[in-house]
Structure formats: structure tokens, C-alpha cells
């Protein structure tokens, strides 16, 4: 790895002409600048990555000194275990529900705030940012009260409309959607603000041109504005998907995976198996599966960041 200690002798590059040829001698100090970052990066990112891959081939408690090598046994166990199957299904069901809901509602709300009649757009932008400020733990506190059976505000309001009482966090059929509702509130501002920026960046002339051609407001939105927002919508979907697959905090605070594993997610599984049940190998294997799911999606995010 690149550190200042990687002198020419150590790296086998003793031929000084190499340094002259590459024109880097005067920039050797660059290594001093990246040293603090690289040291921490290697210790807490690169190292743990390979260690995690290795751990997924072992069995044992997190504090065990000796962890026996079991090969791919952990991965095979993942395919046969009932809980892991439930965990995969939950994460999948949650992701394919929350991402389209969040993106579509955010698009609608961005059109609402971006409407030509609306003044004080900055105010509304700030308003939708507010939920992003609270920690998942604080949000969980807030919403557990709102969603509480009988005396919760939402329960009361839906009761007024004649909707039967829903046990948002304690009914196994509903709990995942209770979590979804909270996470929607928590994350929607991100999508709205992103969309709003893209939308206001669409040149007014394009709208005018479409309108002169006889398009109504709906047609302008669907045929002109939304296609031009394509890259931003893609980024939004990618980030939403990455977050959805890594759902943990809200579940940990509110339901701890329950009732009967209805809200058990992949990261919940990793945390519990590593730090509660003493099954580090299984937890690491689940982590690798999560990596394999996230990687292709995240590749898009990487490309977006790399292009800048």
C-alpha cells in the first residue's frame, strides 16, 4: 500500500531514472498527504472487507480465539434455514414496496412544490428536509406513539374514517408496512429535493415549446419533464434500493425483528447472529450475500460519483 515508508528501495524501484521519467520526484510529498487517510482506510475498510470474506468460511463465536474452518458450510446453511428464507423475503418485499412508493410519491410532491403557482419554494424544500434530521431512534419514538393501538393519533384518525384498527407494529401481517410507513416519512425528503432540483433545471423554453404544440400539463410532465429527469430518477432509485436492503435502525428500535420475524431484515440477521447468538460465520455469510445484492446496484452509484 502507498505510504511514505514505501521508499524506492522497498518497492524495488531503485532506478532513479524511473522517478524522473514518471515526473513524480517533486510529488513524493503526495504520499505524506494521503498517509493518514490511507492508514485508516486500510485498517477499517480494506482489511475488514477481506477479513469478512474469510470469516464467512469459519464457524464460531465472535470472541472465540480459534474458529474452525468449515468451507462453504455457512452458505449452504443459509439456503436451508427457515429464518434466513424469511429474512430474504422480508428484505425483498420491503425493497420492492418502499422504492416505487417513495419514488412515485416524491415525484408527485416535487411537481406540487415545483408548480409555477407556488411561491416560497425554499420554505417547502426546508419543510420536507425536516424528517431527514432526526435519527432513526428518535423517529421510531415519535412514530411508535403515533401508530400506537387505541390512543395513537393515526389510529384515532383512521378510526374516524371508519377504517378498522390496524396493529401497525404488532400484527405480523402489517408490521413490515408499519416500518415502511415510518421509513417513507424519514426518507421522502431526499427524493423530493433531488427531483425538485432536476425539475427546476429543465429549461422553461422546452415547456413553452411543448405547450405551443398543444400539449396539456400532464403531457408536458410525462413527455418532457420526466424523461429529462431520467438520470436523477435512476440515482434516486439506486440510493433508495441500497438503503432499503440495509434497513436496520428502525427495526432494531421498534420491533427487534418481530413479531415472529415479520420485520427481520438481512442486517438485523447479521447483527443478531454476530453479536447475540454467537454465529459469526453465518452472519458474515449473510453479509457476503448482501454484498452480492448491493454491488451491482451500487455500481451505478459508483459510476455517477466517478463521472463527476
Amino acid at each position, binding site marked *: 500500500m502507498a505510504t511514505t515508508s514505501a521508499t524506492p528501495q522497498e518497492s524495488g524501484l531503485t532506478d532513479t531514472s524511473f522517478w524522473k521519467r514518471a515526473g513524480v520526484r517533486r510529488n513524493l510529498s503526495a504520499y505524506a498527504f494521503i498517509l493518514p487517510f490511507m492508514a485508516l482506510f486500510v485498517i477499517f*475498510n480494506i482489511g475488514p*472487507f477481506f477479513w469478512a470474506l474469510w470469516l464467512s468460511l469459519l464457524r464460531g463465536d465472535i470472541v472465540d480465539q480459534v474458529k474452525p474452518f468449515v468451507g462453504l458450510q455457512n452458505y449452504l446453511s443459509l439456503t436451508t434455514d427457515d429464518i434466513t428464507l424469511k429474512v430474504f423475503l422480508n428484505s425483498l418485499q420491503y425493497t420492492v414496496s418502499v422504492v416505487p412508493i417513495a419514488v412515485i410519491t416524491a415525484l408527485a410532491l416535487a411537481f406540487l412544490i415545483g408548480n409555477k403557482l407556488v411561491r416560497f419554494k425554499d420554505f417547502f424544500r426546508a419543510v420536507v428536509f425536516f424528517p*431527514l434530521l432526526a435519527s432513526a431512534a428518535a423517529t421510531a419514538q415519535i412514530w411508535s406513539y403515533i401508530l400506537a393501538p387505541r390512543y395513537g393519533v393515526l389510529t384515532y384518525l383512521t378510526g374516524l374514517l371508519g377504517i378498522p384498527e390496524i396493529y401497525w407494529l404488532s400484527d405480523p401481517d402489517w408490521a413490515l408496512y408499519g416500518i415502511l410507513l415510518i421509513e417513507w416519512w424519514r426518507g421522502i425528503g431526499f427524493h423530493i429535493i433531488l427531483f425538485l432540483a432536476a425539475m427546476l433545471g429543465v429549461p422553461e423554453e422546452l415547456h413553452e415549446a411543448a405547450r405551443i404544440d398543444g400539449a396539456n400539463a400532464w403531457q408536458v410532465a410525462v413527455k418532457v419533464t420526466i424523461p429529462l429527469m431520467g438520470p436523477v430518477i435512476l440515482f434516486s432509485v439506486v440510493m433508495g434500493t441500497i438503503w432499503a436492503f440495509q434497513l436496520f435502525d428502525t427495526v432494531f428500535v421498534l420491533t427487534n425483528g418481530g413479531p415472529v420475524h415479520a420485520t427481520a431484515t*438481512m442486517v438485523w440477521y447479521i447483527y443478531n447472529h454476530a453479536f447475540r447468538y454467537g454465529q459469526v460465520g453465518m452472519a458474515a455469510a449473510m453479509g457476503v450475500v448482501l454484498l452480492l445484492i448491493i454491488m451491482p446496484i*451500487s455500481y451505478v452509484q459508483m459510476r455517477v460519483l466517478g463521472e463527476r
Partner: protein
Amino acid sequence: MTRFKFNGDWRKTIRVLPQAVIVYVLLAALVILMLGPYLYIFSSSFKETYTLISIPPQLIPEEFVWDNYSYILTELPFSLWFFNTILVALLVTVGTVLIDALAAYAFAKKQFWGRDFLFGLMLATIMIPGALLLIPAFLITNWLGLLNSYGGLIIPGLANVLGVFLLRQFMQTIPEELEHAARIDGCSDFGVFWRIILPLSAPALATLSIVVFTSQWNNLVWPLVVLNDKDLYTLPLGLALLRSEFQVNYGITSASAFLSVVPLVIVFLFLQRYFLEGLTVGAVKG
């Protein structure tokens, strides 16, 4: 841009009026949805416990009581958690910004052997989910003897890859001429960084600071894994503990949740712009 205002064109105003009414009614609903939960727990934090479970729910407490606040501040180590959170978030922010800025400067302005490889490697690690690194990062922190300490909370979070990208991108836009001029005046490499690059990067540094501070303030998983000692807890961990210990005592949980959000809300009101910019870095929501 045509906006809804009385500019003398009454025919036009009357024509758009129905649409404007609908738009603003929907916006009002949005404001209630986004801010309502905050206002509701604020109001709940002043309620007596028995009125918290009244039907219909009271939006404004009939009688304001301070009991919940005095309880969490005197009977619980809440102020300690508050202090821990401020300390850890500030130190991580300062450390990250400094370490990332040093690296970003080299990546933006210098040619060195292995640069593109290292940068590609950093890009690639963005794809790794944090949960996969959780176990080995815990083991390394344990091995370094940092479990259950401020050091264990702070040090593993200092190398922020997204921060290097953000700062590098900004530093690339700083003209070379400024650097050359400083060098001719006898500035050292570090002098150029400290006196020229860093001050000119202030907006990007501010954005990164906000991103890091917010995500540290709200971080739950890492403190959860590293800490045992309740006196070292940060706010999110403390709130999670309260949730399990005072499950239905909504007065206590409302007051603590509200207090935990207040500092960020205040910072947000003053530095909104940097929050909005930080959002696109994709790192605000932890």
C-alpha cells in the same frame, strides 16, 4: 415565470385561482405531514402520563408539566449522553474533514505513482455494505483495545471515502496559478495546502462537515456494537434503551426524542444550504 400574484391582470388571476387553491391546500397537508409528528411529540413531552393515553388524543396538553424533562435530566444520564454525542460528533467531524482534505488535495493536485489505482480502489469500496464490515471492524477495534471508549467511537469513522470525492472534486476547480504563485513566494507543500487550498475549499469543507456531523449525531449501529458502559452512550443508543425500558411511558420517550433532535434543527436553520448540498453526496441518511 408566471407566479400567482396581483400584477393587475385580474382575468388571469381569476383563471388560475381554483388551481392555486388546490395546490396550496395540498401543500398545507404536506407541511402537516412533515412537521406534525415533531410538533406532536413536542406537545406530548409536556403531558402528564395519564393524559397521554386519552381518547381522543390531545393535540395540545390541557396542563403543561415539566415532569418529563426534569425526570430525564435528573433521573437518567441523559445530559451525559448529550455531552457524549456532541463530543464524538465534533471530534469525528474535525478529524474526518482534516484527514479527507489532506488526501483530497493529493488526489486533486498531484501526480504520484499508484494514484489512479488507489482512487479506483476507494471508489470500489462504496459498493461494500457497512453491515459486512461491522464484524471485522469490531474485532479490529477490540484488538486495538478501543472497545467501550471514546477512541473506539471516533477513530474507525475517520476515513470517509465520500468526503475525499467531494473535496477532490471541489479542489480540482481551484486554479493552478494560485498554487504556483504561492510556491514562488516560498510556500512549502503543506503551506500551499494550509494557506491556499484549505481556505478556498471552505464551502466544500462546510458541506462535508454537515454531512459527517449529522450522520455521527444519528449513528446507532456503531455505538451499539462498541459500547457497554451506559455512561458512554450516545443519544440514538440512549433513545433505543429508553424505548425498551419505558415502552409506554410516552412522556419520557417524547421528551428525550425531542431534545435529541433540537440541536440539529437549530444547526439546520442556520446552515440549510450546506445540508441541501450534502444531500446529493448521498450520505445524509445513515
